[in-house]
């Protein structure tokens, strides 16, 4: 794959990021030793089931982890600066400006008592020096860019007057308002219908490609990632278990958990009578097993997996897995 000098200067470099919740003198690691790099203009898919730590990883990047949680250790290097250590004032200038986020539930992330146009304009007021008139023009342009025909009419509408898909497009307009270099999209289509979902995805993809914006796309839906992303990370119990290219992942997944996920995708092209399901269920943070966190559900479990957590095994330059099957 050709990579124009992007590999030398990654846009985002997460190193050993660990975010924990301190409750009643116990520690729950929601994000544990996460390593991740994102290049400029790249769409990266972060996949995991609920409770696997996807959203907490996103919130840690933006330093929005709710108390009693906090970033315990690690670095988040974004455009050369460590976001974990910069002052809170500096961080505010980055949020919504250089890095923006699209949340899952569009109704709860919009304010019901303000016009949608004003809500988009607010971001521009905060982060740019534009005049009132310029801001209004730009807001209308943004509404058009996310596919609203009568943008001026939309400007004065309220969130409840829009459908779920339209609200999600408003959130996208807000996310791209300041031409960010990174957009974090946390399950942006999960609450939507299949048809609306595919529209939102194609809109996002076009916008990202157009402006060479990088996107960290968080989802539990592997079918979506297949179309959207080039690289994929699989999260389980707070850890990234496997990092792979999307093509290799679907044809030859490395980690036993990934194998299970790929086999349990319900696709139209497959014709088995029964699905291959992963037995058991996702462990709670309070009941994590010793050793490899996946070992109680794993079909290839060995003695060592039960006591020691597997370290990262690098397979190729951009492909690694946390599993003892690949040690040696």
């Amino acid at each position, binding site marked *: 794959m050709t990579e124009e000098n992007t590999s030398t200067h990654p846009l985002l470099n997460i190193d050993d990021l660990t975010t924990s919740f301190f409750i009643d003198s116990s520690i729950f690691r929601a994000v544990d030793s996460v390593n991740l790099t994102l290049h400029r203009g790249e769409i990266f898919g972060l996949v995991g*089931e*609920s409770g696997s730590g996807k959203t907490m990883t996103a919130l840690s990047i933006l330093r929005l982890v709710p108390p009693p949680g906090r970033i315990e250790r690690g670095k988040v290097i974004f455009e050369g600066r460590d976001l974990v250590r910069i002052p809170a004032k500096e961080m505010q200038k980055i949020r919504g400006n250089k890095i923006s986020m699209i949340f899952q539930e569009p109704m709860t992330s919009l304010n019901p008592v303000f016009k949608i146009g004003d809500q988009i304009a607010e971001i521009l007021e905060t982060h740019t020096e534009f005049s009132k008139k310029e801001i209004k023009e730009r807001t209308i342009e943004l509404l058009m860019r996310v*596919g609203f025909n009568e943008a001026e009419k939309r400007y004065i509408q309220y969130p409840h007057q829009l459908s779920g898909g339209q609200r999600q497009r408003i959130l996208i307009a807000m996310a791209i308002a300041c031409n960010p270099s990174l957009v974090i999209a946390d399950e942006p289509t999960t609450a939507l*219908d*299949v*048809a*609306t*979902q*595919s*529209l939102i*995805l*194609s809109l996002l*993809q076009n916008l990202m490609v157009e402006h060479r914006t990088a996107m960290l796309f968080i989802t*539990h*839906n*592997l*079918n*979506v990632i*297949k*179309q959207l992303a080039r690289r994929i990370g699989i999260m389980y119990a707070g850890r990234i278990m496997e990092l792979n290219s999307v093509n290799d992942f679907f044809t030859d997944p490395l980690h036993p958990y990934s194998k*299970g*996920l790929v086999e*349990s*995708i*319900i*696709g*139209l*092209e497959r014709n088995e*009578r*029964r*699905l*291959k*399901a*992963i*037995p058991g*269920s*996702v462990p709670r943070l309070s009941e994590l097993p010793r050793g490899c966190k996946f070992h109680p559900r794993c079909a290839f479990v060995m003695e060592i997996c039960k006591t020691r957590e597997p370290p990262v095994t690098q397979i190729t330059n951009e492909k690694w897995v946390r599993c003892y099957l690949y040690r040696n």
Partner: protein
Amino acid sequence: MLSISELTKTFEVRKTAFSIKKHVISALDKVSFFVEKGETLGVVGESGSGKSTLARCILMLEVPDSGTITFAGADLMDLTHNQLRTYRKRMQIIFQDPYSSLNPRHTVYYTIAEPILFHHIAPKEETRKRVIEIFKNVGLDEDFMNKYPHEMSGGQRQRVAIGRALATNPALLIADEPVSSLDVSIQAQIINLFMDIKEQYAITMIFISHDLNIVRFVSDNIIVMYGGKILEMGTKEEVLNHPLHPYTQMLMNASQGKFSHYKGQDIIDISGCLYYPRCQRRKAVCKNSVPPLTGDKDHMVACFKE
């Protein structure tokens, strides 16, 4: 087994909380179909297509405006409340969210035992035996017996909801989006469970989902709904291998993860085909007249194209 004919249900909605003028929303518009004994019918559609209203009407949880529902030889709309109760024993429903459909203050044991006691399915002293048997059939460990819903994971809760539905030995099971709130790895487990139940209990099922991929796995026949109408229906093979309606084709693409592009137009008053505003292949005729559902019994479609 179950035959639905011209089923219609409308809801009156005020535009705002204070308006006097009411809007009539048609949730089901002359829906007709039948399900043979032991068959599974898959119902696909987006939210607002009338899928759930259909499920509620079949169980008479919602009283339809007109039409007939014939179940095991009786027209459910003619029955009195007491008569209906004996029929409800034989028709059960599983909802999407197992957390809100289970009583948080009842143990799992009582949740499953309650319908057995209420409908006098088994003598009192045999209740425990029946519950243990159901536990085994839905793949739950007996240790769970005295747990409460909040102590269980989503997949386990859905197993309990399925167990409760099976407790009365129903002839008809309606599953309304039973896996959409579950994680991917758990979805596959629950779908497999439905396949097992189908074989083991020889049950007639109506399986509702917005995801064609899921419906495809369990169904013998498929109905595609949009805006309260059936747009396409037929055997699974026919509908999936030769989808005729543009809407079905779009759903198939979407479920394979292919993106579609359409210029959305919000036309509310449509006198013709409901799908007209979004259709890729609309023609002049579609705007003003409603296409009838035509075809043979293996495959019917409501579209002027064919």
